[in-house]
């Protein structure tokens, strides 16, 4: 540390403990070391981050409360069977809890099965199509058609064929969830670095080896993004099919309340549905994080 004031202080930094050096022929020790500067910076950054964390989350909570209060005030002007407020919604939830919880379980099962089936199908089909340029050429217009038409519109038809139980919901959910996984698998399997492909060819790798050791793993970030799209679509599809088919699931519960004009029940079921939707989505995000971390991959550039 610099001792006296008559020595010119210098802000030069050193990798190790400060050593004195010559300035204009006089010995000088620097006033501050690199390590101290580093620590100062780190402390400043940490403090700022803590501050931001508090302010941002406070703001978010404030927004939430504002919305809640606004909802309550708005609902107070209307009959609870037209627009129930937060309190009436909670009451409705509690009142119809048996119905809603049973519906929630059914919906969850349908989403899970439909999602799983759709992801599996998307992976297999995407792999087959992705490695074959011929198939891509042939199937291209059909894939565009599949993407363009909301498959949810098929709900009445599927319900007619498969009945009112769990099956039509699972099938339609799978049909909807397939596409994002399929599309992203195709993209990921193809978007491999030219040189990596050459490497595998020069080594004389078999198509299977190239697929499993290179293309599939390279496609993982894309597939994970596809999974997120798939879970969202599966959820939407299940809800709509339940609207159409009734009988099982939260969508059916909502339609029951809708028919009976028990709007608090409808809102309560919606709340449960929101929770389920969020839970499913974040589970998939968790899977994504774990898989990418295991393979030391990052998300594809947006």
């Amino acid at each position, binding site marked *: 540390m610099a001792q006296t004031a008559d020595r010119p202080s210098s802000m030069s930094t050193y990798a190790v403990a400060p050593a004195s050096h010559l300035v204009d022929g006089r010995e000088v020790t620097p006033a501050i070391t690199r390590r101290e500067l580093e620590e100062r910076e780190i402390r400043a950054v940490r403090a700022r981050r803590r501050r931001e964390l508090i302010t941002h989350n406070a703001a978010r909570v404030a927004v939430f409360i504002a919305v809640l209060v606004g909802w309550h005030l708005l609902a107070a002007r209307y009959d609870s069977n037209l627009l129930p407020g937060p309190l009436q919604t909670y009451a409705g939830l509690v009142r119809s809890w048996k119905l809603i919880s049973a519906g929630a379980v059914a919906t969850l099962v349908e989403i899970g099965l439909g999602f799983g089936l759709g992801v599996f199908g998307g992976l297999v089909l995407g792999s087959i199509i992705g490695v074959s340029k011929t198939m891509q050429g042939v199937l291209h217009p059909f894939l565009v058609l599949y993407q363009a038409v*909301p498959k949810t519109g*098929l709900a009445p038809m599927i319900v*007619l064929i498969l009945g009112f139980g769990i099956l039509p919901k699972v099938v339609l959910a799978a049909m909807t969830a397939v596409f994002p996984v399929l599309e992203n698998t195709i993209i990921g399997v193809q978007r491999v670095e030219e040189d990596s492909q050459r490497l595998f060819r020069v080594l004389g790798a078999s198509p299977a080896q190239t697929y499993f050791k290179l293309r599939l793993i390279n496609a993982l970030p894309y597939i994970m993004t596809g999974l997120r799209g798939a879970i969202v679509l599966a959820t939407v599809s299940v809800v709509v099919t339940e609207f159409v088919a009734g009988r099982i699931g939260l969508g059916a519960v909502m339609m029951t309340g809708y028919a009976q004009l028990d709007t608090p029940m409808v809102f309560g079921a919606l709340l449960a549905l929101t929770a389920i939707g969020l839970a499913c989505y974040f589970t998939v995000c968790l899977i994504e994080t774990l898989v990418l971390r295991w393979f030391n991959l990052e998300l594809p550039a947006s």
Partner: protein
Amino acid sequence: MAPEALVHPSDADLYRHFYDHEVREQARRRRRARIVNLLGRSVIVAAFLGLWTAAAAVYPPIIVPSPLATWRALVTEIGTLAQNTPPTLLEIVLGFLAGSVLGIGLGALVAQSRWAEIVLRPYLVVSQAVPKVALAPILVILLGYGLTSKVTLAALIAFFPLLENTIAGLRRVDLDSLRLLQSLGATRWQIFTKLRVFCALPLVFAGLRIAAVMATLGAIVAEFVAGNRGLGALLVVSMGTFSTPLLYATMVVLTALAFSVYLLATWLERKALHRYNLAAPRA
């Protein structure tokens, strides 16, 4: 591939020899690809129709009508179908417009403030995860059986992808161009109109394409729930009355409608991007 030995040919001869060969190869490959494509697609369409006919033979006609029966229903019920198409189309268009304007407008506003964007980000993520179509019954209760509830649902579903894409697009600015404008002393508004808007265009138009599909979905689902007017309502009604040929015929019309909407949106996207010489955003 290696023909007769080339003995002291001139350069022009060599060039022509290889060129002809390669051009012929390429033409042959292209022809083969075209044939394979045509053949493959015909096979798929034929297989589809074949499976359908087979299913129609297996299941009673009240569950699965044959393609022929569907066609006949299409022809005989053309009146009903024609009556129910305009409402659906109107809902889609209005919902799309409302959702787009709100989505882009709000997106532009939020993008101005980094703070607002950061605060609202978790809500955007949450809104993605929540099935907004579940609002259909509530909207019909609140807004009635008319056009409003359906347009609102369509707009709501179309709104979010556009909001997100607009915000992301406006943030995605080429840093060097930004620094250039700043060094010229451009105002925030000038930077917005001369730079940010154009950087955002690819994502915004991609968002518009998604919004078109979403608006279609929203209109259909709202009609499922309300069940009084429109192609979606027709689907549910014909399902309930087991008028299955009509159901299938409506499906055909609906598919055609949805596909047309999508094609229009895609065409618009391509034209707009082409006009400004921009590239489509990576998938």
